[in-house]
């Protein structure tokens, strides 16, 4: 029953093998977070590449917000995958999604910065 040792020992050390479908769903959620991170980085890149608010200050502020959000999404992808897999194995309630709220606020703030930069 003991398969060859699987990578994050902190995840696979304890608990029972969960329903494989749940692990696969967790994996897809992880991938969705990765794409979210990529989209945030793409936003930061696009603002600079297209010089979208021509005012440098507003552009820098909006780009940095997107950059931070992308990093946050990437970290959430990995840590969230680990935490969910752990709690699937332990049979405990799944972790919440606090990062989701931060991401929503951040995108709104970044959009506001771009808008102000365009018209200010």
């Amino acid at each position: 029953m003991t398969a060859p040792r699987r990578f994050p020992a902190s995840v696979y050390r304890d608990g029972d093998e969960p329903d494989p479908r749940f692990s696969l769903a967790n994996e897809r959620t992880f991938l969705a977070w990765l794409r979210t991170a990529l989209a945030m980085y793409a936003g930061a890149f696009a603002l600079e590449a297209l010089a979208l608010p021509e005012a440098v200050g507003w552009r820098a502020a909006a780009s940095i917000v997107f950059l931070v959000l992308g990093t946050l999404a990437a970290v959430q992808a990995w840590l969230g995958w680990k935490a969910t897999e752990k709690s699937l194995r332990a049979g405990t309630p799944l972790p919440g999604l606090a990062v989701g709220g931060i991401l929503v606020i951040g995108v709104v703030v970044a959009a506001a910065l771009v808008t102000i930069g365009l018209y200010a």
Partner: protein
Amino acid sequence: MSRDSSDGTAGSDASGGPAGPSPVEPDAVFDKGLQPERTLLAWRRTCLAFGVASLVGMRFTVEAMGILAVVVGVIGAGLAVLAYALAATGYRRAHHSLRGQGILARGGLPMLAGTAAVLVIGALCAGYLAIGLLGA
């Protein structure tokens, strides 16, 4: 090579459906909800996003950074193609182990690699921003 010969009759438990030519379809899907297949598609669109991001980034930086942008963009696109191929083999492996023992023998190494890749893209993006904003 009858991959697509299971027309919805094969469930997650291979206890032998009443209808069908053979009691155990040799290569039927594991799950009626097509979870492994959907996960494969999710890996594919993630690889596609990475490849496109690398090439678009290259396109927008090639005038300013020249050969460096081309090298980084081609490496990124190549890694995306590699990950696409690895996702296919990973799917085959998962399919066989799910059909065989009913467990998903898969660790977190692909996830760590994906996270590292996106963080590298973030670092490159930060460098591009720094150059652009300080030069402005």
